[in-house]
């Protein structure tokens, strides 16, 4: 644990030592604002909830999270600092978890900075704040899943551009699996059993469930498993590829 915290602190301070943090947060807030108020028309819906706000999160994370995760390991492999990290008395698991947690907390900070949206909706109406909190939790879990995927992909290459594109593509597949177009198509060709299977794998479905305010243990387990699975693959990837 001590080592995880040490890695976490170094990573966290490196976000704020470079423009990465500020650029990410500004772009994230601008895009959320645009999507929520212009495309989502949150104010014209005459409903006091944040559905219009949360609906876009999977699509936003799809490219913003890979932009954050692409450097996690690819950069260390390219510059060779991975040799320094991996010859200090820190296990690979500790390093992977420390880096992941720092990135995840960082997205948590960005997410928390959207609080003006929440203030606005509370000013205009009387929303179910429990449901909104659940939405935030769901959004953060979604970000964590994409980060774990992105971190794993980043360990497979020295090239950040490749890390970005591949992670975004995988996240896209996970999001698209829950889209109506895809599910309708499946229903037509394969019937409802197959649809159910893909629904149960899609991040969007689980995310939507949570953000309705129903925090089902299955949804939590789903995101938790995604994170654990990809962090585990991440450790294996580091072990195999660190020196090549």
């Amino acid at each position: 644990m001590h080592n995880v915290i040490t890695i976490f602190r170094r990573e966290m301070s490196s976000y704020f030592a470079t423009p990465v943090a500020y650029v990410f947060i500004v772009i994230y807030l601008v895009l959320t604002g645009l999507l929520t108020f212009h495309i989502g028309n949150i104010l014209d819906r005459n409903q006091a909830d944040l559905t219009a706000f949360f609906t876009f999160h999977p699509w936003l994370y799809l490219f913003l999270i890979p932009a954050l995760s692409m450097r996690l390991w690819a950069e260390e492999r390219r510059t060779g600092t991975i040799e320094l990290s991996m010859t200090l008395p820190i296990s690979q698991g500790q390093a992977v978890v420390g880096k992941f947690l720092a990135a995840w907390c960082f997205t948590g900070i960005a997410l928390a900075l959207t609080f003006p949206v929440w203030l606005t909706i509370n000013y205009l109406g009387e929303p179910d704040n429990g449901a909104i909190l659940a939405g935030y939790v769901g959004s953060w879990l979604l970000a964590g899943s994409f980060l774990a995927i992105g971190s794993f992909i980043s360990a497979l290459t020295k090239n950040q551009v490749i890390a970005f594109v591949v992670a975004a593509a995988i996240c896209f597949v996970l999001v698209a699996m829950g889209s109506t177009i895809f599910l309708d198509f499946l229903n037509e060709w394969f019937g409802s059993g197959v649809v159910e299977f893909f629904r149960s794998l899609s991040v969007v479905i689980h995310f939507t469930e949570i953000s309705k305010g129903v925090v089902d243990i299955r949804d939590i387990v789903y995101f938790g498993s995604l994170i654990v699975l990809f962090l585990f693959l991440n450790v294996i990837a580091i072990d195999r590829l660190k020196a090549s």
Partner: protein
Amino acid sequence: MIEIDHLTKAFGSIKAVDDVSFKVAKGEVLGFLGPNGAGKSTTMKMITGFLPPSGGTATVAGFDVQRKPIEVKKRVGYLPEGVPLWPDMTPRAFFEFIARVRGFAGEEAARHIDAAVKKTQLADVLDQPIETLSKGFKRRVGLAQALLHDPEVLILDEPTDGLDPNQKHEVRELIRDMAGEKAIVISTHILEEVEAVCSRAIIIAHGKIVADDTPAALAARSDRHNGVTLATDAAATVRPALEALPDVAAVVDAPGGALFARARDGKSIISQVSAALREIDAEIDQISVERGRLDEVFRQITNTPSSHA
């Protein structure tokens, strides 16, 4: 302190390190020599637990690096080749991070950082991002990182590569100061460095050890060992007198119009030579005995690895 036993590393069909065994005791400074691509860095990466060996074992302070990697890493200070560092950190933040990883906190961490900074003379650049530092400073940051926890074992991969002569001198002084309480391995292809700091030298070529001896004993393998160089205006009379000596193998011209008498089988010939010179009463401006040249031995050994392997 370090025990390498039949260590082997293959990359595909290339054997980068091929059945290497040696030991390094506390107090020794081992110079690890070899041409580029000989397998020096690969061996060091295996000792420090970065690369898994394809065969054999590396043991540090009794811990097998494969079985107890963390125990080994705790006891080793390592300067990797090329000195990889996180560019956006300042040396201060970097050392604080390393101190924490090494298990120091508060007062103790500050003491270790101060000592490492003092040894490597980094006080002036502590708050400047590492990416803005010159090559010499970066290397010192890497060294300070390796020394910070005062480890029992130091593995330094080309610690003076790319430094100017003054910086090289400082780094060598530093290594010499630490010798005694530690087992130190430095890799290099600068031979004067070996003579300056190492108590022992291992030469490797094509992944195999081709020589393991003290620098002086290695230099003595040179065919110039115990040869005599002399500067004289009376070369015409001196040359045949020297050629007549039983233990002189040959007399050749040396730079600056001097003569060089090569010793037969590395025997000491200085007394014979001086006696001969007295006999012909030749006027000699300068005379010196060669100890042999490490670079020459290095070339001889590493160019014909099969005959020595």
